[in-house]
């Protein structure tokens, strides 16, 4: 809303460019006061659009709450849609850096998008704030990348340990066949087998998979204690419904995995089939801290639905940009900004978090949660906490 009202008041100066395939640019014009521009590249259309919307919503919410001025400078968000296509991301980032002279590029719904921009961030010495993509290697691709989302290694190693220690001996895995899915599988397997567990079946599902029936039948026939599952957020609902259809819930086969499957966005749509699923993740809308209750209430009031883990990453991402600018006194030198972010600690709606000064990746609590009914709605309710988990994808090296 706020971008729109600014546009109306400054219609003469505002420029809206609609490119091919609905790429939309909203350019909030500069005030008389000096401004800092943040290029926010998100998938606002296409299959990953819910990620983009959550992050965009959260960034707007934060700026409404905290104002749009930091260290005497006005913050301008330039939102661009890349449709999660890396070629678009790269071209848009180039435009933002060269034409708009942004001081930050942020967002990145998927891993390939974040990777496509890494060389540009290095070349232009501009901080790249990753707010969604979750593959371990991302922050290693440029010294200017800082991540506020999560890595799949963080949650998958924890659930692997937890499963091995909690009476789960045999696991069948079902993961989407792309980088995050392979990360989830590798790190789960490593920790689960080290804890004495056994993988009885390993199935990689194509990313654009319409029907889980044959894969689920394979899971069922291999008679595991639990199914470890990672599919991109949108497919989680289909997976759970077909899991119940095939009667896997009645055979006592549990569902475990990183929390992406149980995105708050989709949880209610899955129905009671999701009840009892145990996942490890950094955020649930049911996180019981006062700060989170406030965050969830404000988000619901503004947008009518509850925030998911992507929203909290966006909220923390823009917070980190604000705090870094405070530290540099409004200076936008890339090296100084990245130095200011390294080691930064703060309280997020998800709990205490910090930026690892060595890897520039996020360090956060990982919670083990179980899907339960709270007030007629489904939530992932946290019951165990692993504190200050680093990305094990790098610490192992």
């Amino acid at each position, binding site marked *: 809303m706020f971008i729109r009202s600014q546009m109306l008041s400054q219609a003469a100066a505002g420029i809206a460019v609609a490119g091919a*395939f609905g790429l939309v640019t909203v350019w909030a014009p500069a005030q008389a006061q000096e401004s800092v521009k943040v290029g926010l590249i998100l998938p606002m*259309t296409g*299959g990953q659009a819910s990620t983009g919307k959550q992050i965009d919503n959260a960034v707007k919410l934060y700026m409404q709450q905290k104002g749009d001025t930091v260290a005497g400078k006005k913050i301008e968000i330039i939102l661009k849609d890349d449709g999660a296509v890396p070629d678009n991301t790269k071209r848009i980032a180039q435009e933002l850096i060269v034409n708009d002279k942004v001081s930050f590029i942020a967002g990145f719904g998927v891993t390939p998008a974040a990777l496509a921009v890494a060389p540009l961030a290095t070349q232009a010495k501009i901080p790249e704030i990753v707010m969604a993509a979750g593959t371990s290697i991302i922050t290693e691709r440029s010294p200017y990348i800082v991540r506020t989302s999560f890595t799949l290694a963080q949650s998958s190693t924890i659930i692997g340990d937890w499963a091995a220690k909690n009476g789960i001996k045999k696991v069948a895995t079902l993961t989407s066949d792309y980088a995050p899915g392979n990360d989830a599988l590798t790190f789960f397997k490593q920790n689960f087998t080290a804890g004495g567990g056994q993988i009885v079946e390993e199935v990689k599902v194509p990313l654009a998979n319409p029907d889980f*029936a044959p*894969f689920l039948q*394979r899971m069922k*026939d291999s008679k595991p204690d639990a199914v470890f599952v990672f599919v991109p957020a949108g497919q989680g609902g289909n997976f759970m419904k077909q899991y119940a*259809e095939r009667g896997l819930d009645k055979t006592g086969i549990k569902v475990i995995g990183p929390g992406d499957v149980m995105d708050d966005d989709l949880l209610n749509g899955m*129905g009671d089939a999701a009840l009892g699923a145990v996942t490890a993740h950094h955020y649930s809308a049911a996180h019981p801290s006062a700060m989170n209750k406030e965050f969830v209430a404000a988000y619901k009031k503004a947008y009518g639905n509850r925030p998911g883990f992507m929203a909290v990453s966006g909220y923390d991402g823009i917070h980190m940009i604000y705090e870094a600018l405070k530290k540099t006194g409004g200076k936008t030198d890339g090296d100084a900004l990245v130095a200011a972010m390294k080691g930064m600690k703060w309280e997020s709606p998800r709990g205490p978090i910090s930026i690892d000064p060595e890897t520039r990746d996020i360090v956060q609590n990982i919670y083990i949660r179980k899907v339960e009914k709270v007030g007629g709605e489904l939530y992932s309710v946290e019951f165990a906490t692993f504190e200050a988990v680093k990305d094990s994808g790098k610490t192992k090296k």
Partner: protein
Amino acid sequence: MTTLFTILFDGVAYGMLLFVLACGLAVTLGLMNFVNLAHGAFAMTGGYVCAVLVNQSGWPFFAALPLAFVVSAAIGVALERSLYRHLYTRSHLDQVLFSVGLVFMSVAAVDYIMGSSRIFIKLPAALEGQIDFFGVGVGRYRLMIIVICGLLTAGLQLVLARTRFGSRLRAAVDDPRAASGLGINVPQVFAFTFAFGCGLAGLGGALSAEILGLDPYFPLKFMIYFLIVVTVGGSSSITGPFLASLLLGIGDVAGKYYVPKMGPFVIYTIMIVILIWRPNGLFGRTAAR
């Protein structure tokens, strides 16, 4: 052994679903010779109509299914009268560009109205879970799909082959000028047929939401499947696409079960092999029209 039957059952159900989704396209593409790539958009419409009626207005699922058909058919007839009919005589390229444009518009419109999240239709409890049939797990929902689609196929075949309307349609397609000279109202026959194809797509969309998922990108994601069914089946009859759907459905499910590492490619392999063997599809006409 029981696993084999389960796979076979799942494959037949998946194939039937593909058939209902694609047979409307077989009608428009095969019989009317119109390349309507926006077919999936009508399927999506049916899915969303059913979802809104069931989830928001509290309609029973089985009452919402016919409405999914009716609304998609109504939109189909409105678009046919206003837009499509001007393109019957144009080249296939024009038709492709026009209908792909429609797809993008429908994606954007549904995204704007319904949001981009995937939605699910609340099913009655009677359709959930499995029945044990001599040790073979039979999914109730999939069983329902087989029953509905089986009846539809039989009905469709009867209408096309045995009724007065069927022969008028075939006449109108083969030689529109002679047909109208004989007193057949060709535009009306075409409009009705087109609407019926769209209605079938809508019904397929409503039925498929549970298995394939429903979001605004549905028409783009499944366009390729519709086209495979029609290409493999050949576009001159209904039996061709029907057998093709079954073959592809069973092949896809069995491939994913027995060779999961290459599972997703099985459907394409089948297509390529069949097209090398019979370039016009299983039941294609050998002579060009």
